[in-house]
């Protein structure tokens, strides 16, 4: 299943890319499972997601918790806690 993944702020800087389309293997069904899988893609991903408990996620531009299902998702985003305002 090809999925667009976007990275923002220091997650983007650490992975070295703003977005990419990845084919997820079977068994990656939640945001938390996606993070675990991404960490295995290379040292830059391991570094970006080293503080996985700090990183927030969104599915199709809505905030979600780590246990959220990826079923039907078109776009997943990872970013630090927001600091606007």
């Amino acid at each position, binding site marked *: 299943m090809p999925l667009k993944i*976007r990275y923002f702020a220091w997650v983007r800087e650490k992975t070295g890319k703003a977005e990419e389309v990845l084919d997820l293997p079977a068994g990656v069904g939640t945001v938390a499972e996606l993070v675990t899988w991404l960490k295995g893609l290379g040292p830059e991903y391991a570094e970006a997601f080293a503080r996985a408990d700090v990183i927030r996620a969104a599915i199709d531009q809505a905030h979600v918790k780590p246990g959220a299902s990826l079923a039907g998702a078109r776009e997943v985003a990872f970013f*630090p806690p927001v*600091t606007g305002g």
Partner: protein
Amino acid sequence: MGVRVQREDFDIGTEVRHLTAGRVDVGAIVTFTGTVRVGNEGRDILGMTLEHYPGMTEGELARVEAEAASRWPLQASLIVHRYGALKPGDNIVLVVTASAHREAAFAAAEFLMDYLKTSAPFWKKELGADGKEHWVEARQSDGAAAERWKKAD
């Protein structure tokens, strides 16, 4: 009602005039403007860059605004948030609320700011006077400020 995300500066007077033009039912207008401080948590800064998530940002701001409109009798509201490179003293964010009475306008403006600070996908990166860049970390007090509106339910 409206939200805007823009690189350009805004003018508070112009925004308020546009928002309430032709209305005679508004008795109270509250505006909040957030600006870039020169010193943040002990660091002197030369400026900052605000990154955001186009699409989600507008969606979250609209969601927060709709939530405010469902809680208070607002006649009009506006959120303008800037992104890109900003210098100390520059405007960052504007919230305007208009209601028949001040209580709703004050409360809704505070709610909008508290909620957008914890939900709108913006990230600030500061450029320090020492030449080093630094991502601003979320403050626990911001989370607590948003949380208290839930307890009030």
